[in-house]
């Protein structure tokens, strides 16, 4: 059996008195898409920020490919991240931004896979300043940045928010393709259709606690439902439910 790519051991995070995450234990495998869902302020974004090193856990540890992540940033070479809100330096052009990020990752010109630039229709806009782009176009740029290095781990925070249907579909297809090639994909989403379409497993967070991390098929089977949107409320009715996350 494959080793987990990402492991959370008793991870907790408090902001002052408020605990955004409590005793999160879970692991994510290579070749799977895990959708992180839960109500607003349930800790989804904090969880992925802990993995990305943006937020320092108050307790517990996170391992990637068997190694504990700390302040050494080298593990992030293997991570692609698409944030919920994309803001870039206003006067840089798309081309300059892509060059900068390739530069920061130590890639030679031509090394990153920029086929996605073409696919998402960004080619004619490469010399446009980022301040002049619409929110959706900025999201496309963000998607290119996250996917172009073909990372082992792809983290997407509400990736389709603000994207047009075609672009949203293209971005999600790329994520699925990455999963099929052995990557680990973590996505936060509020859209049940999106979750149902993509997820291999679903992680549900509530008040900072991981209530369950289950394969989609198991959720459907347990609740005798055909759709996740029907299954989740039934599953959550069982207040005792706290499935150990593996």
């Amino acid at each position, binding site marked *: 059996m494959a080793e987990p790519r990402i492991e959370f051991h008793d991870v907790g995070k408090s902001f002052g008195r408020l605990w955004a995450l409590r005793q999160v234990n879970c692991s994510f495998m290579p070749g799977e898409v895990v959708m992180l869902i839960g109500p607003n302020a349930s800790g989804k974004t904090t969880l992925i920020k802990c993995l990305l090193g*943006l937020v320092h856990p108050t307790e517990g540890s996170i391992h990637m490919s068997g190694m504990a992540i700390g302040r050494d940033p080298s593990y992030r070479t293997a*991570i692609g991240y698409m944030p919920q809100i994309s803001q870039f330096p206003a006067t840089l052009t798309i081309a300059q931004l892509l060059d900068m990020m390739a530069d920061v990752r*130590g890639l030679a010109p031509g090394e990153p896979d920029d086929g996605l630039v073409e696919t998402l229709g960004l080619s004619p806009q490469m010399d446009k300043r980022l301040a002049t782009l619409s929110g959706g176009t900025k999201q496309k740029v963000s998607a290119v*940045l996250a996917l172009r290095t073909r990372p082992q781990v792809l983290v997407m925070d509400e990736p389709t928010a603000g994207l047009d249907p075609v672009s949203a579909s293209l971005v999600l297809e790329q994520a699925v393709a990455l999963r099929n090639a052995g990557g680990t994909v973590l996505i936060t989403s509020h859209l049940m259709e999106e979750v149902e379409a993509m997820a291999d497993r679903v992680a549900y967070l509530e008040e900072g606690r991981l209530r369950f991390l289950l394969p989609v098929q198991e959720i459907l089977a347990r609740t005798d439902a055909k759709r996740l949107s029907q299954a989740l409320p039934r599953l959550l009715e069982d207040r005792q439910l706290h499935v150990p996350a593996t």
Partner: protein
Amino acid sequence: MNATPNPVTLSASKRNHPYPTPNPVTLSKPAPSRAEGSKRNSQPSTCQRQAGPQPPTSNLTKVFKYTLIDLARNRFVLGYAVLLMILTQGLFMLEDDAMKALLSLVQVVLALVPLITVIFTVVYFYDIQEFTQLLAVQPITRRAILAGQLAALTAALLMAQAIGLGLPLLVHSPSPAALVLSLSGSGLVLVFTAIGALIALAQREKARGVGMALVVWLLFVLVYDAVLLWLMFAFSDYPIEPFIIPFAGLNPIDLARILVMLEIDLSAMMGYSGAIYRNFFGSGMGMLVAGLILLLWVGLPVFTAFRVFRNKDL
């Protein structure tokens, strides 16, 4: 209408997709050089096999370069340069005596430069918050990110000042006093960029950060002078000389003013304290101490800003 692709299509897409295998990365391996990167170019699927973190200085330079490109086109920076040029040029055109114009300019520079620098630094750091987040998820240290951004911001403001203030001074009054004014202005840019960065990093809310920057500026420009004046009157019967010099060091703007006034030889205008300042800061040792105090005013906020940024949840 939902944008989500057909569930069946996506679920079924576990078939072999023409997508290259994700780059396997050995976490502990050192960064490859660019030349090595080029050699690997023929194997795109493994292009990152040996990719790792770049040396901090190298990443610092990259962040510096692109931040400076961004700032070079920033309207505020360009506007700052133009404003300084109009003010400097205008004062020299209005006054027949270049020294009088220089004196007026001292007051303008010592009030305006800290205000614009601290406010712009605070606003800029808030504006690039999301981008800083994006940089922080790259294999790059936070130290390199902050150092690159801070260096670029300082360089941009110094360049704007060199164009807006330095050039007209060179044309109208190429004197040691003008040089000291330029250098003092540059020193203030360094100090208030550092203070602005610290405020922006320590305070999460933009409005509060800007408010705090204004308060800091008011403290240095108005409140400090008022307190100093009150203290000198209140304790005029006591020997306060030993306290005047250290007190000057508490305000970088006042320190800069003293240095310029001494160079223009108008310390007499500063009365009793002017004589004390002349005795101390007029000497080589005094200048050295003044320089060191200004360095401290830069170093302390920068050091604290790095500590805050290192532990900050972004």
